[in-house]
């Protein structure tokens, strides 16, 4: 399923467990939109007191115009990296919105139109580290939606990558793009 979002307000929600890097992924996406694509953006998050575990949700709203309410109202895109996240937020998707799930982590999917990709597995297979799953997820998300350009997300990922991890992160992002292209075909 391909979906290019052209509304003036695009709402993206990334949800999973604390420690999966969903908030960092949202920050990177927001930086790609704000700094490299020159758009307006708000990035917010909800998380518990734990460093790992517990539910974590991060949101990005992108627009060419002024963004008033800074949080997602009805998501255009939901990336669910855990069953709990999918159960909790799938119902909030806009009609015709895009649901992307980590196939390995989300067994019960409420829609037959969801894009199922083994995101964490891909991260491990390509980079040897499951920790890059958030960057793979960004690759899938941008590859499918073009909410920001591929060049911008790559710049944003590399600007945030700790020294020495640039190649690993680029590999993860490209794995996400490839997975998205497979779905499109």
């Amino acid at each position, binding site marked *: 399923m391909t979906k290019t979002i052209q509304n003036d307000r695009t709402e993206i929600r990334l949800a999973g467990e604390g420690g999966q890097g969903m908030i960092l992924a949202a*920050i990177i996406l*927001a*930086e790609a939109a*704000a*700094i490299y694509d020159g758009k*307006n*953006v*708000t*990035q*917010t*998050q*909800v*998380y*518990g*007191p734990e460093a790992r575990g517990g539910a974590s949700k991060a949101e990005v709203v992108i627009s060419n115009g002024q*963004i*008033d*309410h*800074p*949080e997602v*109202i009805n998501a255009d895109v939901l990336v669910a990296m855990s069953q709990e996240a999918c159960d909790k937020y799938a119902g909030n998707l806009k009609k015709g919105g895009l649901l992307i799930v980590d196939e390995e982590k989300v067994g019960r999917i409420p829609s037959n139109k969801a894009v199922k990709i083994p995101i964490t597995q891909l991260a491990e297979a390509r980079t040897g580290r499951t920790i890059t799953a958030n960057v793979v997820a960004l690759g899938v998300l941008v590859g499918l939606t073009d909410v920001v350009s591929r060049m911008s997300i790559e710049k944003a990922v590399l600007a945030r990558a700790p020294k020495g991890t640039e190649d690993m992160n680029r590999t993860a992002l490209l794995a996400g793009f490839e997975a998205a292209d497979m779905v499109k075909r």
Partner: protein
Amino acid sequence: MTVKLMQGNDAVGWGALAAGCRFYAGYPITPSTEVAEMLSRELPKVGGKFIQMEDEIASLAACIGASVGGLKSMTATSGPGFSLMQEHIGYAAMTEVPCVVVNVQRLGPSTGQPTSASQGDVMQARWGTHGDHPIIALCPTSVSQSFDLTVKAFNFSEKYRTPVILLLDEVIGHMREKFDMPDFDAIERVDRIATDVPPEWYKPYGDSLSDVPPMANFGDGYRYHITGLFHDPHGYPTQRLDEIDPWIKRVHRKIERNLHDIVLYEEDWDPTNKTVVVSYGASARSARHAVKLARQHRLKVGEITLLTIWPFAEEVIARMARTARRIIVPEMNLGQLALEVERVAGRSKVVRVNRANGEMVTPQEILDAIEGS
């Protein structure tokens, strides 16, 4: 590349630096910690001092001391710490020592919910410390406004020799938005009025033509007494009615006579708007969204966003209430600033839209209130 993605809390730190803040004492607490993190990194680079104190009581005490020593000072906290700081907010008001207290509001009471948003400290910001005292409290609605209002907070505190509360909420504090860092040299900076009399003639609390007495910094050769007791023009304790009464009137007058300077707001309404939304902080973002939707539905609705919540913007609200029939006040509490709106609303009906569960008021909830005439 000057454009950055920045959190509200970070923008507060940069605003403080731009305003000339050179001292921070604090005790980290969610959701305000990023202010401390940022200043612990950046203050030493400009020759400032950062100190982590043992608690919030000591934090504000250290800020007051540093300010008396001549440094612009700030602390940042959230609800539980703000409760502890009340004692010294009163002390700063009584001793007329400039300082900025940032409170990034989280859900309370008590420990509440550290990562959840709230606007529950509106009345505490006004009346949290005991006794009749003037206060200024500012509420930003965006990341860039967090920067701007931090600068304003410092300028007001110096200009009027008063503690200023910068009242963020978790949404604004943790939200990231595009931010274009202004040139610090182009920013208007206000410094306290220095005395020009020799030390032996100096009266720290008297003899001034203005309601704000000139302030000598400790260490500059001026030796004087500071106390939380009512004091005479020299700063020594007094029980004389003819010294207490003028003092309490003067410290209120210095704020009341300058409302035109202190009370900041944004307005977008006209007398044909029968419904007007009055909001502040993160709720103003939902309000603006709702007002735009309502106007798309051809409803004539206005809005006023209060950037200064204390002193309360009586003049503009009362003026608007003469023509509006309904005033909608969304807040992330069970109705605090709505009480002030009601006080000056005349015959207009005040409709509250409240949430005190850690989440933002939604644009739909405000739209429902606008439509439900």
